[in-house]
């Protein structure tokens, strides 16, 4: 029997047995970003379970379910700051969680630097667009809009 083989740390150099500097995971220029992103995936995941399950339950499972959803349904929910905040939190957490997840997937499969770079540019642009649009929609929503001079009244609107 020969001596037990020496098992080196993954990605260590064969010369020194130390992890090559480019593979060190802490103290690099990027600091703790990757660890914080990893932690964020887990924390946001737990909160998203509550937010998304509540969203699906209230919108699809109670009362008439999907048949009840129309403009007035949305107006009714967003008349309440509770649901505005709920939807806002869900929008931001789901988008940041999903974006970071897709960023990981791009890093895994796109091997060429330029491809990886451009895929992430597209990803971040889409994320910024959707998050900003969604946030504006929640806060500028008008339950009784006047469009081209036509007043869209419903029974919950104040008399003109």
């Amino acid at each position: 029997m020969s001596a037990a083989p020496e098992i080196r740390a993954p990605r260590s150099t064969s010369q020194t047995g130390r992890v090559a500097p480019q593979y060190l995971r802490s103290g690099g220029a990027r600091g703790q970003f990757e660890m914080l992103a990893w932690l964020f995936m887990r924390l946001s995941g737990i909160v998203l379970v509550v937010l998304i399950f509540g969203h699906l339950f209230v919108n699809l499972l109670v009362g008439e379910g999907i048949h009840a959803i129309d403009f007035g349904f949305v107006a009714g929910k967003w008349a309440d700051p509770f649901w505005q905040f709920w939807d806002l939190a869900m929008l931001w957490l789901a988008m940041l969680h999903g974006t970071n997840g897709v960023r990981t997937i791009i890093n895994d499969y796109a091997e060429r630097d330029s491809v990886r770079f451009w895929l992430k540019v597209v990803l971040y642009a889409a994320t910024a667009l959707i998050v900003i649009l969604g946030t504006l929609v929640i806060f500028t929503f008008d339950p009784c809009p006047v469009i081209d001079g036509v007043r869209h009244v419903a029974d919950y609107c104040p008399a003109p």
Partner: protein
Amino acid sequence: MPTKPAGTLYRGREGMWSWVGHRVTGVVIFFFLLVHVLDTSLVRVSPEAYTAVIGAYKNPLMALGETGLVAAILFHAFNGLRVILVDFWKSGPKYQRQLLWAVLVIWLVAFAGFAIRHLSLALGGH
């Protein structure tokens, strides 16, 4: 000393397939979310525009799509909680396979409940 990694890192079995499922469902949900924020944004265009696009979600084919999407969300959610347990619970890695079976059982129960209720509402005569 081989210069290239020999074989593959993919190990198969519960660990790998749950990861594949988590990845695929994550991407599917992400793309749906982009579309879903856009369709909801039509409430800022006009009540008619919103009602029209939501009408599309009410046809029977879409009802099947929604049911599939919720199947994906439920798997991603329960398996995500499993990943968190594997990472933070000290016996998590030891029981990761049993945890996956628990995920699948809970998923089946939750999905069956959702599908029965949603499909009977969406497809049921009205």
